[in-house]
């Protein structure tokens, strides 16, 4: 009987496997087009020349990391409220992809900072708060890897996830709240019009990849969870039949 219950639970995840994969592939194809559009059509910046092209990978990575952490916050809150395992798994999936994008944001920022500022790194408010965000979500992933009790792992993760997500507005506003070497937020208000659409196109492409990655990771976790539940039930049934 246990098998059929798990089949019902997992079947949608198995069916939607290819859909999540194809979403990520579609995002990657769109990203090629968006990068070509940005690199080939936007004029060199007055001060930075073609170095400005790094914006098309750096800024979309940062924006989408913020979206991932927003998902972490919502799913963590839902878990703490309703206690549903699936919300915990969704938060974990989004945290993993968010950490990847934050790490990428930092690496790309360093590649932009060295030629623009003359240094790979400086303890400026934007860079420091982004590094704190990155390490908080690394801690989140390490916590999940080391806590074995599923309920305790989910509760602690939800709290760390919420605390980490609270850092996002600080990262975003840091360039306004403190004097920073980092420029103010890139937006249509602060950018030349010729850079706006390539930036939007790249951000949308990365967002589609983000959705595909989170969905794929989440469904893998649902399947793994179903396998664990099935083994638990089988062990319980075996124990009962022996007794």
């Amino acid at each position, binding site marked *: 009987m246990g098998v059929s219950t798990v089949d019902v639970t*997992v079947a949608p995840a198995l069916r939607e496997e290819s859909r999540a994969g194809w979403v990520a592939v579609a995002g*990657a194809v769109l990203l090629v087009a968006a990068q070509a559009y940005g690199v080939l059509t936007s004029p060199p910046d007055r001060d930075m020349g073609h*170095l400005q092209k790094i914006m098309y*990978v750096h800024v979309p990575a940062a924006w989408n990391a913020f979206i991932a952490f927003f998902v972490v916050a919502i799913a963590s809150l839902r878990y703490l409220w309703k206690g549903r395992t699936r919300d915990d798994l969704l938060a974990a999936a989004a945290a993993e*992809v968010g950490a990847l994008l934050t790490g990428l944001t930092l690496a790309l920022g360093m*590649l932009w900072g060295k030629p623009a500022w003359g240094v790979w790194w400086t303890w400026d408010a934007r860079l420091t708060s982004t590094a704190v965000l990155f390490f908080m979500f690394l801690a989140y992933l390490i916590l999940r890897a080391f806590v074995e009790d599923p309920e305790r792992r989910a509760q602690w993760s939800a709290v760390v996830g919420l605390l980490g997500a609270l850092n996002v507005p600080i990262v975003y506003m840091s360039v306004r709240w403190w004097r920073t070497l980092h420029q103010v937020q890139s937006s249509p208000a602060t950018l030349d019009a010729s850079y706006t659409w390539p930036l939007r196109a790249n951000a949308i492409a990365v967002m589609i990849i983000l959705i595909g990655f989170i969905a794929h990771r989440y469904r893998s976790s649902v399947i793994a969870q179903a396998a664990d539940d*099935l083994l638990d*039930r089988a062990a319980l*049934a075996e124990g009962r039949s022996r007794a």
Partner: protein
Amino acid sequence: VPDNSPYIVAAYAITWLAVIVYGLRLRRTRAEAERRLANARQSAGGAA
């Protein structure tokens, strides 16, 4: 303006490296989860 091409090329290369490596890792994770489920079904069948 100096030639900053190496930085630009490195930025795009790192981006694609991250996307491809993580994408492949997701595929592996998925395959592993499905293997675990198949094994669990077998074990559950055996137990029943």
